[in-house]
């Protein structure tokens, strides 16, 4: 039953506060260990690629851009090392997005949110910003103390804050700057940016991305994962009992006692847990949760609590991995006293891998076999057919020729359709009138108007197929397209 509620009666946990919660600031402590090393390594790799890739050169010959990875929007070209994509081939990006999505599913079925913990840009940059903060303001305790201190600000403290934000802004600015370098020749653009000659749009994008990096990695941090990102909600629906998640082994950890008491109780032969309630796992967590409360939406599974706990376990002489990557099945099995099992190969992972392999393979195949010469034909619709004064029938077509190669081509056009048909291209007076020839400059398209004329007596059928062949008369490369020849 719905009850009438007096708004005054609505309460939070212990006060009559408003219906919103102030953020509880997280002060992650520094930690060292296996997963921390993996995170440093991946951060160095990801940021290295992102910041320096635009400066990698790739020789494509004279007149073509020499940047290895370039999104050339004004000319509608995308360059990726030896691959050059045209707007017509934008479906490769669709394929790439599908592969990326399924790869995310695969990651999730294998290792839970390893994307979130190790590779997500939000994690990587936040981690970097935390490192800067730690370097300047000190570790967890110091930072907490400095934030709490109500003393009038000392010059030392002010300079620390200024220095921290300056370095953050510098990183954010470089992040925004690297982004625009993917859309223009990097060395040229850098020169232009420095001398204030670059286009306005470059400065605007650098401004936007500097601001978002600074705000998201410097201030929003774990709130992006908790409140903004849809992936935690989606992945919860995609996960299964075999996925490895960061898990506290409560069967081994409980009951929690101090080191001393545990030793005493053990000496008496009593059963006690390994967890000594040191809160190290909470102190290092970048999202500020207690993993011992079980799987939580806020957990990005970065493994730092594993490192923290392992360090403690080593110190007190207990086995490692009280907190570790584990799956739901094993939690159950340990309770029953059975040995843990792990299964990487299972229907779900096979299907995801197969989808990735199929789409990836198909894309590589089409990319390897695609033609650098192409022809598209569009039949005139109004009129579809024209009767000439001598009674013969003519159809007109718009023909678009694409030369995706890096050199000019001489192209001959043939039409294979109705009997005794002749073809003519507007604006082309060819030496061989029945076989118009035209030059298409490299890396460009040419649109032509092509007329096919056939004597009336040969063409009693309403519609006959007509095939257009374009031949590179130098290399012999052929492309073709089919349309119809229509009689009135």
């Amino acid at each position, binding site marked *: *039953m*719905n*009850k009438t*509620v*007096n708004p005054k*009666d*609505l*309460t*939070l*946990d212990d006060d009559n*506060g*408003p*219906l*919103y*919660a*102030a*953020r509880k600031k997280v002060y992650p402590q520094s930690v060292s260990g296996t997963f921390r090393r993996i995170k440093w390594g991946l951060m160095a790799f990801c940021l290295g690629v992102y910041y320096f890739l635009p400066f990698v050169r790739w020789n494509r010959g004279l007149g073509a851009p020499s940047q290895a990875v370039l999104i050339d929007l004004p000319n509608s070209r995308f360059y990726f090392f030896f691959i050059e994509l045209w707007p017509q081939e934008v479906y490769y990006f669709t394929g790439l997005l599908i592969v990326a999505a399924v790869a995310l599913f695969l990651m999730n079925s294998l290792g839970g949110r390893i994307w979130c913990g190790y590779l997500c840009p939000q994690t990587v940059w936040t981690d970097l910003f935390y490192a800067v903060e730690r370097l300047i303001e000190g570790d967890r305790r110091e930072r907490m103390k400095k934030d709490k201190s109500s003393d009038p600000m000392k010059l030392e403290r002010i300079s620390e804050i200024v220095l921290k934000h300056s370095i953050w802004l510098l990183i954010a600015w470089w992040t925004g700057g690297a982004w625009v370098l993917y859309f223009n020749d990097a060395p040229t653009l850098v020169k232009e940016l420095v001398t204030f000659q670059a286009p306005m749009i470059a400065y605007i994008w650098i401004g936007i991305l500097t601001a978002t990096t600074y705000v998201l990695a410097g201030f*929003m941090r774990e*709130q992006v994962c908790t*409140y903004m990102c849809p992936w935690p909600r989606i992945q919860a629906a995609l996960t299964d009992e075999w996925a490895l998640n960061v898990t506290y082994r409560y069967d081994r950890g409980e009951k929690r006692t101090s080191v001393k008491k545990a030793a005493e109780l053990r000496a008496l032969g009593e059963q006690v847990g390994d967890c000594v309630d040191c809160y190290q796992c909470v102190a290092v967590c970048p999202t500020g949760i207690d993993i011992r409360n079980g799987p939580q939406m806020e957990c990005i599974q970065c493994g730092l609590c594993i490192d923290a706990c392992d360090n403690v376990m080593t110190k007190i002489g207990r086995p490692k991995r009280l907190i570790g990557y584990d799956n739901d099945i094993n939690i159950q099995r340990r309770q029953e006293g059975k040995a843990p099992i792990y299964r990487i190969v299972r229907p779900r992972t096979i299907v995801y891998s197969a989808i990735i392999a199929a789409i990836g393979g198909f894309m590589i195949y089409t990319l390897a076999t695609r033609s650098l010469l192409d022809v598209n034909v569009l039949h*005139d*619709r*109004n*009129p579809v057919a*024209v*009767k*000439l*004064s*001598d*009674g013969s029938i*003519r159809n*007109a077509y718009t023909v678009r020729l694409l030369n995706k190669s890096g050199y000019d081509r001489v192209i001959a056009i043939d039409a294979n359709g109705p009997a005794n048909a002749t073809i003519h291209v*507007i*604006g082309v007076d060819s030496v061989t009138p029945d076989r118009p020839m035209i030059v298409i400059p490299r890396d460009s398209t*040419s*649109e032509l*108007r092509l*007329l096919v004329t056939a004597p009336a007596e040969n063409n009693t059928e309403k519609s006959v197929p007509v095939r257009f062949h374009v031949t590179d008369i130098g290399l012999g490369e052929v492309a073709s397209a089919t349309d119809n020849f229509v009689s009135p």
Partner: protein
Amino acid sequence: MTDHHSDIDSVTGKSTTGHEWDGIKELNTPLPRWWVISFYLTIVWAVAYWIVYPAWPLISSNTTGLFGYSSRADVAVELANLEKIRGDKMAALGKASLADIEKDPALLALARAKGKTVFGDNCAPCHGSGGAGAKGYPNLNDDDWLWGGTLDQIMQTIQFGARSGHAKAHEGQMLAFGKDGVLKADEIVTVANYVRSLAGLPTRKGFDAAKGEKIFAENCVACHGDGGQGNPSMGAPNLTDKIWLYGSDEAALIETISQGRAGVMPAWEGRLDPATIKAMAVYVHSLGGGK
């Protein structure tokens, strides 16, 4: 009634809002403060937007905003910019001769593109979007031209029109032989069949070819020529080919001979600038019917 102050959910240990439906209670999960602030900011933004930009409809107009912004003015500026960008190319088009345009692939492409849009705006109502024409409106894709199909002739027709009232317009008309009493009904039927025979079309049974030839020689040759092959300087169509602007069946021919024809093509000089008319001529010529 429940005492909400002590309404703590037993499973989660969190307080509830006090709302309860069929035994299901709503946990009080407050929004983060920044989220709430962002929400209020969007409301402030919306109100500011109403004030700064044109927004509210009034009885005969609308609120104009603070800076006099209007999307219509934006379009005008963009169009002006476009004209400026295309200025050089259109100037080149204006300078080049018609024949040169057809030989230069870049100019031809420009003229065809320009011609196509202008054709759509100005010519399509009569000639159709692709120049296919209709009864009384010539098909511009075929090779039969009333006033000539060379580039210069096409341009002249577009510029000055036919029977348009322009001083340089094409003049000449098909007389109304029946209405004006020049020919009697049976003579019209005879000459109509004779004209069909010129084009190789079947004729009515028992039609007097000699009489038809005589009527044709006396009345029609002056414009349509001895063999009926037409005369572009007068806009007299070729009667021996397979293309008929007003239809080739007997009834259509009888109507044409009795009532006469005088279709009007408007003059475009003064309405379109010279470069545009030139582009149009090239476009029409390249439709495929040009000579």
